[in-house]
């Protein structure tokens, strides 16, 4: 007893210190001049991992699979046709939270890691900023689909977007080819003119 008490006391003190230190560290990341650290903070609090890091089942329920951090919808998880929505249900999501079906069709969250072939490795800062600002792929392609919160994120400052991009370019690349989005079942394949 006498030998364990100091240990418990030290452990409690360490935990208390860690609890006190954690907010201070977050505060530091929020105000740092280092764009990578600032970007990490923004990616964390903006919830990018919620959809771009696949969920896996842990002891306490679904949790982000950080071995595939920000790598988007897993290429090996083929999604069957989504169940038909039944009013007032409008959306369906995959167990990984990386594929979403709704009135827009089926969207798959993108691979945000710097893998050159399947992620953002070839993207420039301009590509990234224009994508978020316009809500179009690479700033000029197809629309970025729900649930990506473009209407909110488009208001980020240039500095914040640059920090997010700097952080995303610094994380480990994950080779994962995310499928192309699928159009809604009712979409017409072709409308031909003169």
């Amino acid at each position, binding site marked *: 007893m006498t030998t364990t008490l100091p240990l418990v006391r030290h452990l409690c003190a360490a935990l208390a210190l860690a609890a006190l230190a954690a907010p201070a560290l977050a505060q530091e990341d929020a105000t740092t001049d280092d764009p990578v650290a600032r970007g990490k903070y923004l990616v964390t609090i903006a919830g990018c991992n919620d959809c771009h890091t696949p969920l896996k089942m842990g002891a306490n329920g679904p949790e982000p699979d950080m071995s595939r951090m920000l790598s988007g919808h897993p290429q090996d998880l083929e999604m069957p046709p989504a169940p038909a929505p039944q009013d007032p249900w409008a959306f369906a999501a995959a167990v990984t939270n990386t594929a979403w079906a709704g009135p827009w069709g089926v969207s798959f969250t993108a691979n945000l890691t710097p893998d050159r072939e399947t992620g953002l490795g070839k993207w420039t800062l301009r590509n990234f900023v224009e994508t978020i600002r316009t809500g179009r792929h690479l700033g*000029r*392609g*197809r629309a970025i689909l729900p649930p990506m919160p473009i209407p909110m994120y488009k208001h980020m400052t240039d500095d914040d977007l640059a920090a997010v991009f700097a952080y995303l370019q610094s994380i480990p690349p994950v080779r994962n080819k995310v499928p192309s989005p699928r159009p809604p079942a009712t979409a017409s394949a072709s409308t031909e*003119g003169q």
Partner: protein
Amino acid sequence: MTSVRDTCLLILRLVVLGAVLWAAAPRAAEAPPPLPQKLSETGLFARGTREIGPDKLAYAPQYPLWSDGAVKRRWLWLPPGTRIDAANPDAWQFPPGTRLWKEFGFGKPVETRYIERLADGSWRFAAYVWDADGRDARLAPAAGIASLPVRQAPGGRYTIPSRDDCLACHDAGAVPVLGVSALQLSPDRDPLAPHAGAPGEKLEDLATLSARGLLEHLPPELLSEPPRIAAATPRARAALGYLHGNCGHCHNAGGPLAALELDLEQPARASPAATAATLATLVGVASEFRLEDVGTRVVAGADGESLLLARMRSRDPLVQMPPLGTAVSDREAIALVGHWIRDDLSAVQARQEPSR
């Protein structure tokens, strides 16, 4: 005691000092005047009329952008005494004050788009929507108009682009002015180019602009031998020209989409190497985008397996190319590009096979 004379001298010194400081202070750039609310205020019309001003230069690119069958007219105006620097035939530099208009019509004018180069060298874009009586057009909101009722337009609806939509195309090329370049205004016009020309109208081209003295530093060989895409067949020339005019402003080697490594832009100084470079980014190249089982940009000899054609044909917003500015696919161009892939490219491939 300070005399009246000393006081006056002090005031005079202060006034002179203030004037010197004011003159030396950096002047904030003068903000441009707001966009005119009416098309008639942009300078397009002759004074007091609704006729196009005589100083406006009508032109038509030989490889025009498909706009769902709209009849289009275009005009260019340069401030008096200024010229276009044509040293780079693929990226003409326009003087500040340059203005361009492009009218879209279905039976009657619906919209006129306007581009202006400001004094500081920046560009601004606007769209004007024509009144029902056809007397004038009014500035559209910056967000555009998603669905304007126009009886003769496909589906009875017409889309006015947002300013962001304008930039999506006009900010991706070497210069924001698309369609005014040595190749697009070449007098050696492509007879197979879809939707080219505006019948019955006198149009400017490279030769007439040069003769008017409106081009400086134009490489002289472009007048003696006007730009012409160096393609294996007339159909290949027209297909590559169509892709240049409809896709090349975004899909090129130097713009923001360069990372896609899809180069559909053709240079004015044409060469077999230039067209080969385009084909090298197209034929047999896997696409980042897949459409069911189709994932190769172009399969020589197999138009049905070519993603390029599938995306030209589709008008699903997630699939279609171009991604904006059109709601109806271009049947004439699909036929042209389809034949080119099926017949011309397979012939090229067949010639290359024995040497492999």
